[in-house]
């Protein structure tokens, strides 16, 4: 698991079986699968994790719960949690850029047509994608 320092600290305190790291580079060895589920849209530099050598070496790259569109569209998301509200910066990501990036090392193996209701931004496509490493 690669997460923010807070989640890593929380995860390690619970001493579960899954390893928590704050950076992809900290994980020993290579990965078979890289999962990006509902995370890239919250990163200003969303290209970096997708470009990491360990990710590009993975046999499968799986992306899901990520709103994509024809162009980059930043948004502010408010999430009710208990009695309070947490706000996140995010963006609808340009699908063609993601596909261009990944297609140099991976080929689209499967994808789904799922919409994500984004309130004032309307229904946005958030297609789960399975990318397999070329030649694997």
């Amino acid at each position, binding site marked *: *698991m*690669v*997460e*923010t320092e*807070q*989640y890593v*600290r*929380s*995860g390690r305190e619970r001493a*579960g*079986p*899954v*390893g*928590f790291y704050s950076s992809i580079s900290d*994980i*020993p*060895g*290579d*990965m*078979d*699968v*890289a*999962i990006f*589920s509902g*995370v890239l849209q*919250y990163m*200003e530099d969303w290209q970096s*994790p997708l470009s990491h050598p360990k*990710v590009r070496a*993975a*046999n*499968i790259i*799986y992306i*899901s*719960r990520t709103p994509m569109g024809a162009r980059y*569209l*930043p*948004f*502010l998301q*408010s*999430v009710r*949690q*208990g009695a*309070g509200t*947490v*706000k*996140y*910066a995010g*963006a609808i990501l340009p699908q063609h850029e993601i596909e261009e990036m990944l297609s140099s090392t991976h080929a689209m193996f*499967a994808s*789904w047509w*799922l919409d994500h209701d*984004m*309130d*004032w*931004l309307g229904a946005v496509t958030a297609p*789960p994608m*399975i990318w*397999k490493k070329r030649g*694997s």
Partner: protein
Amino acid sequence: MRSLYPLNMLRAMLQKIKSWGQYLIRMYIFGAWRRPDRYRPRKSFQQAAADAGGGYLSEAIPERTDVKPVAPSLAKLPDFFAPFFTMLSIASMDKAGQTLRVLDFGGAHGDYAEYAAAFFQIVFPLNGTWSKRNSM
């Protein structure tokens, strides 16, 4: 009869405007305010980040996010689980029973890993990877 046609058209248009107006008011007052997630467009990611405050890097996030024990069930799953299980099946078959090393970037407390353990007989060694107990 013919002379009433424009009047009827006008009345129909007013009806449509009224119903759309009612819909928008209802959505805003009763819908939008009750939704757990709300999205607002912003000019840039930086502006969204400034409006969000701490956002995902907030110290309060792991405390606010309830860490409940996951009780994996295949009933009433959200739609994005189907592609996840498909991906996991493909990855497992590719590895033919060998250890499956998974990077879950931004995976919070590791719920996907819990589902993988429950339905794919995947066990967790302490090195932070997922490995299969049996070949498929």
